[in-house]
């Protein structure tokens, strides 16, 4: 009897973990709006594809121009009319992107649990649970403390401070939907501070698909093929 209960208990736990691990593909229509510090706007529209195993983010952009961007490791390849046009550097690897965190269900802590940051303090304020993440000792990077708030266990906001304790970036994660058990914020609002001036950004996801079958050539885009 005890053995049966134990086996059922472990099957239950493993079932939960398997559900989280089973999410391996993310696809969505994506819109990015930016208001730069000089008052000009940038508007980009298209679709984003991410496969956790391939570790590539593919952006099939339709506006302002029809272009494809493929992010692999620390490089981004740009294609126009099926021809590779340029290569860009990108310090943010795909496995540290929001798509990876979403599929891994790691988004509630902004992926910090698996980073070198450690929890400095946790506090409740209103309906928020606020966690202060502190950088490792001897941190020589630009970044200082990061304050993450969750609401009903969902990531609500992120405040990023620099090493001097000045707020440099604020993010709000909104309009959550659940697709195949995966929690997805479909609107991400950001303010980046450059002294007195600010840069605003809104990223929106629509038509989110998890674990799309087929379309392999897009999810595992071969950069050497074209």
């Amino acid at each position, binding site marked *: 009897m005890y053995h049966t209960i134990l086996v059922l208990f472990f099957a239950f736990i493993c079932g939960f973990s398997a559900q989280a691990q089973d999410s391996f593909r993310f696809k969505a229509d994506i819109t990015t709006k930016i208001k730069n510090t000089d008052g000009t706007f940038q508007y980009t529209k298209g679709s984003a594809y991410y496969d956790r195993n391939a570790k590539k983010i593919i952006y099939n952009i339709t506006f302002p121009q029809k272009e494809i961007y493929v992010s692999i490791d620390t490089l981004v390849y740009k294609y126009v009319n099926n021809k590779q046009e340029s290569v860009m550097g990108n310090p*943010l690897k795909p496995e540290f992107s929001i798509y990876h965190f979403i599929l891994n269900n790691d988004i509630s802590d902004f992926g910090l649990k698996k980073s070198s940051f450690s929890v400095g303090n946790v506090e409740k304020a209103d309906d928020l649970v606020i966690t202060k993440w502190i950088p490792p000792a001897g941190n020589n990077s630009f970044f200082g403390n990061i304050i993450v708030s969750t609401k009903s266990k969902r990531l609500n906001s992120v405040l990023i401070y620099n090493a001097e304790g000045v707020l440099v970036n*604020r993010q709000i994660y909104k309009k959550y939907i659940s697709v195949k058990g995966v929690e997805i914020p479909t609107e991400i609002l950001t303010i980046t501070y450059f002294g007195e001036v600010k840069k605003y950004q809104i990223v929106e996801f629509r038509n989110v698909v998890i674990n799309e079958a087929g379309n392999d050539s897009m999810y595992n885009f071969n950069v050497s093929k074209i």
Partner: protein
Amino acid sequence: MKKFLFKSLSVSLALLLLTMQSFAFNLKSTVDFTSTEIQATTDFNDSEIYEAFADISTLDQYLQTNEDKTYSDLELEDSSMLAGVSSTTTLPLSSSQSDELALGIPSFLWGCVFGIIGVVVVYLMTDENKEQTKKAVYGCVASTVVGIVFYVVVIAAATTTAAAATY
């Protein structure tokens, strides 16, 4: 049965001990919140962000229903919607736009090795990216300064050597 219960109890106690240890460690390393940190989190007003994009709401609505339209199409049809809107793409949630490299070669090197031509190449190949063009200009200036310093040192050395040979 008794053996199984003892084993379960010992495993539970071991887990409890580990949990208490990590809990004690966490208590030791707490860093207090400042009042501004709490306030910045709870008073985060998103209306400021929405209002920042009021000027492009027409473009936004138009593109929701006309998904295949490009910037060039709109320039021909109704360019008023593009007032203040750049024609460059920005990748969502990444910082790649400012790091665009011509042929994957750092812009500073382009300017350093090819001078003014390198600056022009970077300007054209990075879709007129100001940041990268600036880096290429710095490269160009750096190579020019190094060239001048080298020239002055060589001329000075040659003059000194010639003067010494005369005497």
